[in-house]
């Protein structure tokens, strides 16, 4: 392992470090090629890395087709789902929907979910529905998909998105995924099972949420990313954009070996 880790490998390691043993993780489908790389492949590798290191008893549910797939046998994920997924090796195939689905999602079965959005705001609220006025939107997006469930019932949510200024707003135009809504008391007032978003992971940085205010704050920059670059690309400004921040931990050589030799030996999940 002489090569430096790619940004995707750094992101996958960041996902892995957030995950714990005996947890249940839920990954849905994404729309568009770029989103698929960030929202499907990065967390897939991150979850697999956790299973190969510190979380062997965890269970990942992937794209509604199976639990704990054997990733190194995969062709590219999205393009082959239709006809071959049922024949891929995994620990359990998912053939029935709720109430027979192995994950009783609204009973709190899912410990960690993954979401993306066109817009995320300072309280971690997500918008996948529309930009502008709802009735005559400037841009219509895909719709709420499964975000209300992810953000109300899942234990913790990891938001993954490309780091572009337009993606970060003060207040989203349509709340499809409820972060901390308007402050630290909101979630308990709404009676939610889950504890809400814990991380915004981009291709430049990691944000977390300040415990008292629940405002998003820059936690670390990925290796080689400057603070100025990040600041310039973060559309909203708040108290938690510091002058100096940490560097996102790189994958260890052993983690990098597992990613490249065990999980994704053919490089179909993460470009390198």
């Amino acid at each position, binding site marked *: 392992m002489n090569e430096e880790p790619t940004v995707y490998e750094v992101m996958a390691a960041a996902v892995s470090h957030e995950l714990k043993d005996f947890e249940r993780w839920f990954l849905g489908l994404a729309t568009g090629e770029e989103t*698929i790389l960030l929202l499907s492949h990065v967390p897939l590798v991150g979850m697999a890395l956790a299973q190969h290191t510190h979380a062997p008893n965890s269970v990942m549910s992937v794209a509604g087709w199976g639990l704990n797939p054997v990733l190194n046998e995969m062709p590219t994920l999205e393009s082959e789902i239709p006809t071959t997924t*049922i024949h891929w090796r995994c620990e359990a*195939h998912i053939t029935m929907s709720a109430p027979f689905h192995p994950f009783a999602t609204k009973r709190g079965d899912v410990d960690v979910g993954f979401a993306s959005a066109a817009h995320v705001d300072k309280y971690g609220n997500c918008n996948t529905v529309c930009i502008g006025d709802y009735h005559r939107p*400037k841009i219509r997006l895909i719709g*709420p*998909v499964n975000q*209300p469930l992810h953000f109300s019932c899942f234990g913790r949510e990891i938001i993954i998105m490309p780091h572009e200024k337009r993606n970060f707003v003060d207040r989203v135009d349509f709340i499809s995924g409820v972060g901390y809504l308007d402050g630290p008391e909101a979630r308990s007032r709404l009676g939610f099972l889950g504890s809400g978003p814990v991380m915004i992971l981009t291709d430049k940085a990691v944000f977390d949420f300040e415990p008292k205010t629940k405002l998003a704050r820059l936690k670390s920059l990925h290796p080689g990313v400057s603070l100025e670059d990040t600041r310039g690309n973060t559309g909203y400004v708040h108290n938690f954009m510091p002058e100096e921040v940490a560097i996102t931990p790189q994958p260890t050589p052993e983690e990098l070996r597992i990613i490249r030799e065990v999980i994704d030996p053919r490089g179909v999940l993460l470009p390198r």
Partner: protein
Amino acid sequence: MSVVQLKEKLCSLAEAAKLIKNGSRITFGGFTIHNHPMAFIYELIRQGVKDLTIVGFTNGNEVDILVGAGCVKRIETCYVGLEKFGVAPNFRRAVEKGEIEVVEYSEDLAIERFQCSARGDPFIPSRILFGSDIPKYNRDIKEGVSPLDGGKYHAIPPADPEWVIVHTPMGDRYGNALYFPNMQLPMNWDLVMTRTTNKVIVTVEQIIDRERVLRLSHLNMIPRFRNVAIVEAPYGAHPSSYLQLYNFDAEHLTMYARLARDPAEFKKYLDKYVYGVKSHLDYLKLIGVENLMKIRHVGGGL
């Protein structure tokens, strides 16, 4: 049973599509870019049906083309998109122009609305929408108070479609429709949709003998009494995939996603692939044997 007296429900795409009147409340099976009854949808467009209300779930190219062809008035859905091929261009444009009404549901509730219809319950009591903007804009959802714990809930209305159209691998001329073993989730979702109305139309890849149906009775998931019509349409989900039988046509969907961005280009697409073909077989000839063989998947149902 006296087989000779059984009512035949086999008919042509044109005959089946004629059953759908302007303004119908209708559901199409399938998920994003998989398993949609596309041959039926093309025929609906050719017949010029208008003002449909689509009771949807996770919709894709089937809804986008209907919207682009001007057939749709309202969509109840959680998603309209083309999965790896990006946004649904016609849907997006129509919403931005205010040409269609969208009624938003979350994904879990969008499918549970069909389960609610199948169970015959008056509503789903749900507690996952608090804080989101869905109940603010979806006026069909009302707030209530639980008689058991006194807490608030949202009453989600059942799907209650008038028509449900699904595509399955095989069926007989009397309307029995069969699935392969090892169902995947989209087949399970389709199945529950067929339990929500007695006006079900099934298109199948192939019509098989009744004797084979009787031998495969454990796969007869949509028995004939549920259906009003059955239609043979080989590769009837193209350019969607039909899971276990063929992949989606990636080249075609890439082209579709590009052309649909421009109304004039999309008009040419419709002229060529929908209005310009006289029958489903003509459509398959236009797609070409090379493409059909390329996406084919043998043994997928095993």
